[in-house]
């Protein structure tokens, strides 16, 4: 792995100031990655990669300039860095100025954050896990195709700014995807089969594999696919009481809380790409029932151990924190970066991340979830005991949301009818269709802490160029009213 000297980055920032910038920061990283992909018990590919890159942001003449490059060799680091700095400064000066960009103030931070990896992994370990997972899935009756990917990455990330910050952090990620496709009665067409995808993973090293238990997840994925193909039925379309499991709520909170709470969307900065937020100008207003509470919390506390959105400082060197988006149904605060915080007149709360030093940081969710009701039901049975007629939604699949994040359809692989307080028929391929105001306003019960779960979401897309970021989402059981449809 290419070693990058933090003091070199400090000197780079000094030379940036000498060029007359208002502000500049630099991110640099080196990383190693290994990956495996298996299918039906056979390993199909193994991959190993090494990367290093550097990216410089500069504010000059009131506008941002950015330049990044891969670092081909250690000898090239200085010249590459100098070129990036020169280019970022001249780009900033060439752009418009309407009006000058301002940044909310932060205290400079100097930190070195190592990662103590307890367990190493070899290529054989990845290969063995990958093939074993597909073997477990393929062993479930009805499964015709099972695939698994596993990846382990380690990176050393550096940040330095003209304000005197310098942060070095070691970051590990482990995880992958599980896929099963099952067919009922030997049907060969895609419409006669049921496919289930599910990610697993952690911000951490190989030691998390045992904790995460992807074997159990793999078997569940396969059994779900098989049961949905053979036993489950499509739901009828109706407006009814809906109880949503934490897995479903992970996608719900992601799409209709996390995204509309990104300050760049709120300010219109993403209007041409990810869209806007219908919550613009609604801070302090009621957006749901008093039971709806949601936060983004990136703090490295025990509850967030191994979560994708856990980090001590964001990619602007701002300390992470707990950001309350919705409190007792009232909209409170957005996730922001220093520029959006300045525009909103609030403190920066550590919401800026990029997937690579070679790309610009954006406002991104961290660990974004609904909070449980301390007095809420302790189990699913308690949650539904007085529900005479309703639907329980299970594992999330694919969403479709309008560009303001107001009107949406969020699909689920599976669900159950609820009749007189008990689960009855298994349902498949169903969705809730709704709008956030009505749905959040209908929430009449939220599960207690015992029902709370968090899930990795490794594929949140935003930005141009597109960045696929890892976040964590989840929540407790929740109950409200919405329209349920079958999605074939």
């Amino acid at each position, binding site marked *: 792995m290419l070693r990058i000297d933090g003091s070199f980055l400090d000197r780079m920032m000094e030379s940036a100031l000498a060029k007359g910038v208002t502000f500049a920061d630099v991110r640099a990283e080196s990383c190693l990655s290994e990956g495996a992909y298996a299918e039906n018990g056979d*390993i199909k590919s193994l991959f190993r990669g090494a990367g290093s890159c550097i990216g410089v942001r500069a504010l000059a003449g009131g506008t941002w300039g950015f330049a990044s490059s891969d670092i081909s060799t250690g000898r090239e680091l200085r010249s590459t860095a100098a070129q990036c700095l020169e280019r970022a400064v001249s780009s900033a000066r*060439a*752009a418009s100025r*309407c009006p000058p960009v301002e940044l909310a103030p932060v205290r400079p931070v100097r930190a070195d954050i190592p990662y103590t990896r307890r367990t190493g992994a070899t290529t054989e370990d990845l290969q063995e896990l990958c093939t074993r997972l597909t073997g477990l899935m393929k062993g479930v009756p009805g499964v015709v195709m099972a695939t698994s990917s596993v990846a382990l990455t380690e990176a050393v990330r550096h940040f330095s700014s003209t304000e005197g910050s310098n942060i070095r952090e070691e970051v590990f990620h482990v995880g992958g995807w599980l896929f099963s496709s099952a067919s009922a009665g030997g049907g060969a067409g895609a419409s006669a089969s049921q496919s289930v995808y599910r990610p697993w993973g952690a911000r951490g090293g190989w030691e998390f594999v045992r904790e995460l238990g992807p074997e159990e997840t793999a078997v569940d994925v396969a059994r779900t696919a098989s049961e949905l193909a053979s036993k489950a039925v499509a739901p009828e379309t109706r407006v009814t009481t809906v109880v949503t499991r934490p897995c479903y709520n992970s996608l719900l909170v992601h799409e209709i809380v996390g995204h509309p709470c990104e300050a760049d969307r709120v300010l*219109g900065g993403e209007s041409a790409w990810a*869209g806007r937020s219908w919550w613009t100008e609604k801070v302090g207003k009621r957006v749901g029932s008093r039971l709806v509470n949601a936060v983004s919390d990136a703090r490295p506390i025990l509850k967030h151990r191994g979560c994708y959105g856990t980090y001590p400082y964001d990619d602007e060197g701002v300390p992470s924190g707990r950001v309350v988006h919705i409190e007792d149904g009232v909209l409170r605060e957005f996730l922001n970066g220093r520029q959006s915080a300045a525009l909103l007149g609030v403190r920066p709360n550590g919401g800026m991340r990029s997937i690579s030093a*070679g790309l610009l940081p954006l406002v991104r969710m961290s660990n974004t979830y609904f909070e449980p009701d301390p007095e809420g039901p302790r189990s699913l049975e308690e949650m539904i005991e007085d529900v005479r007629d309703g639907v329980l939604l299970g594992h999330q699949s*694919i969403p479709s949301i309008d560009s303001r994040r107001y009107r949406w359809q969020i699909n689920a692989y599976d669900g159950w009818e609820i009749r007189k307080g008990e689960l009855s028929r298994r349902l498949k391929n169903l969705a809730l269709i709704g709008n956030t105001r009505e749905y959040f306003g209908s929430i009449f019960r939220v599960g207690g802490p015992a029902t709370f779960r968090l899930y990795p979401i490794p594929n949140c897309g935003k930005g141009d160029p597109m960045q696929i970021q890892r976040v964590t989402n989840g929540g407790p059981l929740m109950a409200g009213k919405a329209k349920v449809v079958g999605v*074939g």
Partner: protein
Amino acid sequence: MGRDEGAGRKARKARSEAQGSRRKAKGGNTTESPLRHAPSPLRPRPLRHAPFASRLEEPEEIARRLLKLALALGDVEQAEAYVSRNRMTMTRLETLRRGQRVAGPAAQQVSTFMNMEACVRVVVKGAVGTAATVHLDSASLGRVASDARSIARAMPPDPNFWSLAGPSGRRPARLAPDRAILEGGAFEALVDGSAEAAGLCPSGVDLAGSVIAISEVFGVCNSLGIDTGRCEDTRAVAQLTAERVEGGEVLSSGMGWSASRSLSGLDAAAAARQALELGLLRPRLRTVPEGDYDVLLGPYSVADMLDHMLVPQLGMAQIYTGTSWLPAERAATGNGVTLRRPLLGTTVAAPSVSLREEPHLPGAMGSRTFDDEGVPTAPRPLIDEGIWRGVFSNSYYAHLYGLEPPGNGFRFGPRPGRMASAPLSNSPTNLVLRPGDLSFEELVERCRCDALYIPRTWYTYPTRYGASGFSSSNRSTAFLIRKGELVPVAPNAFKLRGDMARVLREARGIGREASTATTWSASFCSIVPHVLSAGLRVEKPSE
């Protein structure tokens, strides 16, 4: 597509006019928007960003050296080396508001992204090991070759793997890249184009989007005789959105785009004008009734549906794993392996629908000579008068299914351009939907009862893997077509549910004018006309 040299003179004239406007704004009152940007005193002369200076060799030379290193390792049956170098320059136009507008429309950010990396694949006893690196010194290249071999040795043979790609009988096309983009001279054109686009925006309308130029330089060679030499592809794209916002609500929205292989074909101002057409239009309806509709899809909506609901399904990886909704059956191959085979020759669309892959269109943004395995791309039918004829495939799946590799093995990854470290996909180049013979007015006349005209869909995704059902929204201002009249409907007014198989089968009219459309961050484009079809349902309209 390609534009003549007059476009260059136009760009210089626009820059001159923009400078004149700035002088005028500095002088005091104007009738123009009070939020036009003030002149920047920090831009004394035109800039020209030189390419990143490097002591490194060119990609094709590094690839050849890497291949030699891999083959010299011993017990290597086959090997392939691929080296890519990409540069993306981008201006990002934004309009920011907090209640009232506080900034823009203006280029808030100008960025350059450069990446260069190498990948080697090594075959040992039928197993393929892959390793990639951005470190291109000799020692690192030696290590990555050695890594790939040790990985291959650690694997059992892959029964589906037949061979790396071999030389094709096809002559590669000759496609000229844009030299200005290649040599780092796109910067001024992008900045000026953005300024010209922003200058068209009246007060009360937010304009935002990106103006981008990308160069892709790569070389791939392998032990079977493939050596592409130096390959150069370029593209320039402007995607702009214009919206009127009042009280936090988006009252109207329009999108415009311009996509080309060269700067001379890029017209950010035209994209802005196109966006403003709908961005300025006041909707008369906030909702439409729930129900089933005929739908007239604008070119962007057609491109969006192709991108999300047909292109992946035409990919051999999805057909193989059973997650394509296109018809397939399990059948044995000649060597006894049972695979899901695509039922080519099946009717999948109306006779008026003919879709081709056209990788060699001179000015189109997705044009490419070779894929990233060194296979020459080739124009071919995908759907011919409703009959399914072609798939997208890299050499792995092509060999497995006994097909000639068509040249769709591309390495598109998380950073701009082609990435050596990205896995080989099954991706298209340019998609061309054959125009029909109907004018827009004639298409409107063909609508039965109430219908919808949707210029821009959004978040068009399948409702489940392997199904043709999808969900979407109208991101831009749409229209209710009622007795031949187009009544504007607010953006984000309704959720749509549809069935792509039905949209294709029930296409009842194809427009006679095609335009190039490309979706967010896409590496290919679609050259498509309006399409009138059925099979869409509006769910839960807005209040």
